């Protein structure tokens, strides 16, 4: 089955509630802590943000702005000594089915490199065509890739890449860290969604298709009814440009749809880090993350 066959053909929207809690316990007192969060879902045509809230403990005054990539950022600082930091980001969004659920979508599947070539030549997509530290491929892998996508149109190439990664890589939580590159993960044949996305980006770019990293959330159950709650997680997948942006989720070998909540885009992970911060004090800490997703409608 093609990944472009939508999981849900109802064409209805879902309403999802997300509760993302991060607790950092430092190994000693910490002060002068400066933080940025990228945890608020985007508000776009395909996804409506109904509400969002960020709570911080110890109490801090959060401030918001929209960054270069269009992601909503929450920033805050904590001056007084503290030994733990709790961040609770809650939101309610409405998601749309995959673009391919539209009956008219078949037209878009016209395989054309022309639009891509023109756009790449203009330089407008330069950020999404150049390899980055985490998305760079080895020459050998590039060669292998060329053989696999040779002669295919951009959508087909994307589909093959998605399937290939899904097949070759094992999803192993904890196998890699936030600083692992796609290349390292590929060599170890295991990783998490971040690695799957980095490899997909690297391959798409190597195949001549502009590609970007997507950070967000995934509702894990394929079959569900309104009212169902479950443990979910932060998720990452990939979008490629072929006249417009299209998604692939190499971790699950699907085109993102109702179950995917978009937080932001970037060239790679570093552009949409969910939480980054610097502080003075104990270098080590223990991190606990829980993401709870509830399908409201």
């Amino acid at each position, binding site marked *: 089955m093609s990944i472009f066959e939508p999981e849900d053909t109802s064409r209805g929207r879902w309403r999802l509630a997300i509760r993302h809690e991060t607790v950092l316990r430092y190994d000693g007192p910490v002060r002068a802590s*400066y933080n940025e969060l990228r945890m608020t879902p985007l508000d776009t045509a395909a996804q409506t943000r109904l509400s969002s809230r960020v709570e911080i403990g110890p109490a801090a005054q959060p401030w918001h702005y929209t960054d270069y990539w269009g992601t909503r950022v929450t920033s805050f600082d904590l001056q007084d000594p503290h030994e733990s930091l709790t961040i609770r980001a809650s939101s309610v969004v409405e998601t749309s089915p995959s673009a391919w659920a539209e009956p008219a979508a078949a037209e878009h599947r016209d395989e054309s490199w022309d639009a891509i070539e023109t756009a790449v030549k203009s330089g407008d997509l*330069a950020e999404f065509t150049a390899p980055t530290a985490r998305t760079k491929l080895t020459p050998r892998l590039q060669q292998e890739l060329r053989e696999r996508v040779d002669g295919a149109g951009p959508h087909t190439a994307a589909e093959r890449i998605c399937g290939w990664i899904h097949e070759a890589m094992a999803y192993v939580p904890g196998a890699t860290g936030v600083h692992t590159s796609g290349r390292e993960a590929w060599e170890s044949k295991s990783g998490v969604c971040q690695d799957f996305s980095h490899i997909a980006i690297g391959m798409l770019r190597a195949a001549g298709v502009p590609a970007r990293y997507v950070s967000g959330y995934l509702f894990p159950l394929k079959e569900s009814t309104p009212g169902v709650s479950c443990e979910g997680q932060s998720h990452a997948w990939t979008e490629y440009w072929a006249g417009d942006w299209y998604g692939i989720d190499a971790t699950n070998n699907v085109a993102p749809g109702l179950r995917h909540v978009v937080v932001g885009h970037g060239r790679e992970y570093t552009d949409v880090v969910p939480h980054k911060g610097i502080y003075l004090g104990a270098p080590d800490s223990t991190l606990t993350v829980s993401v709870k997703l509830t399908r409201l409608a």
Partner: protein
Amino acid sequence: MADVFDEYALGAAWDEMFSAPGAPRPAYRAVRAALDRFDPGELRLRADQVARAFTDRGVTFAFDGEERPFPLDLVPRVIAAGEWDLIDRGVRQRVLALEAFLADVYGPANCFHDRIVPRSVVLTGSGFHRAAHGIEPTNGVRVHVAGIDLVRDVDGRFRVLEDNVRVPSGVSYVLENRRIMTRTFPGLFAEQRVRPVDDYPVRLLKALRAASPRAVADPTVVVLTPGVANSAYFEHALLARLMGVQLVEGRDLFCVGNRVMMRTTAGEEPVHVIYRRIDDDFIDPLHFRPESVIGVPGILNAARAGTVAIANAVGCGAADDKLIYTYIPELIRYYLGEEPVLENVETHRLEDAERLEFVLDHLADLVLKPVDGAGGKGIVIGPAADERTLDNLRVQVSKNPRGWIAQRPVALSTSPTFTADRFAPRHIDLRPFAVNDGERVWVLPGGLTRVALREGALIVNSSQGGGSKDTWVLAGESAHAEAVNPAQSAGSDAADGQLDPADAVAGRLAGPGADGLQQQQQQQQQAQKDC
């Protein structure tokens, strides 16, 4: 008595003082006549005096961990009023175009839509900072201070060699050179009307105050320095002193709730305008290098929130990339609807395959520059390079065409320079400084003339054995009118006088050390444009 100009041999380059052997240009007649009165011994004595004065005042730059005076040559560089008018207009025009370009790049991006500059050129430049996107300067100014490097071609025409809009340095030498020259050669100034340079700190302070967040009636301005170990520390201290503002280090400041405060003996005090002499990469460890201890975490978001102005703005490097340089004439036409007053040096962009091939075939006739190199680093002058250097260069350029530009070699003009016992021609350039307060761009009449002290050398940077000259802009006829009615002065802005201006008893206690900081204070100067 031997005439100190006797053996002065003119080369192929334009000479600033002589149009022909023994025939000084009009602007230099008085200087030439005055210098003739000295014998070599007297000149040497004065040269020593100058060096001594610089050392005592601490007018030094750090080189290889040593403090060295930046050598000041005894012969001033003289620019006639008419010529200066051209430079003044050209620099102002250039700065306005650079400002417009930056506002566009970090805003509506019209120049990309209109296909004036390919977006990829900006997106792939190392000076373009996405983190600076969305920071709106209060008075629209990002380039509060610019240094535009000019050279004079064989035909006598001034051309722009590069733009410096990140952290341009060197203005302290302009101020100090003048101070020392008036003391060393009081007589020289008597016969000339040389335009003063000491307005600079007042103009700078005015521009910085104008950049302050609107709600603040009496803004607190500070100069932010990497610290004493930085090569330009003297300049930071001098500017702070002359403006009468605090010279702070990163550790003196901290952000709380998007406000920048400084730690004083009387508690915390808010800061509104930061004239920073720290590179973008080091200024905010939250957004840039996390290991920076000379920056201030949170400062970028404070600027974004509009509670503090950073001068120059973060991300100005998007405009002084050497590849962007090649587009500036186009950008002047696009944004200002004017023809460039000062031309570029003919430059090849290497992204085009044919052009690249041409350049690779002609490396020996061209000057190759890394697009984000500073301080003359990495430049290869083809005609002067050996085979191995060129081969090496060929490999590097083919590997990364975006990283290089190629220029026609310009035989920088020469000026008589004192060498032990007589005057000899040495190559020079000129860096005029412009200050933008949002209402007008003011160009300091003079600027820094740098001189390559080694015979035949074309690289004038201090880190490569350069020195400097006092730069005299002669007052024209209009300067008289100016004093009476500044509004009528044609194209020049002289001061109008209206500027608002161990604890055991046996052990000894020791003061604070700089250990950890010193390394970064020095380190960041590597990246900084030196002079």
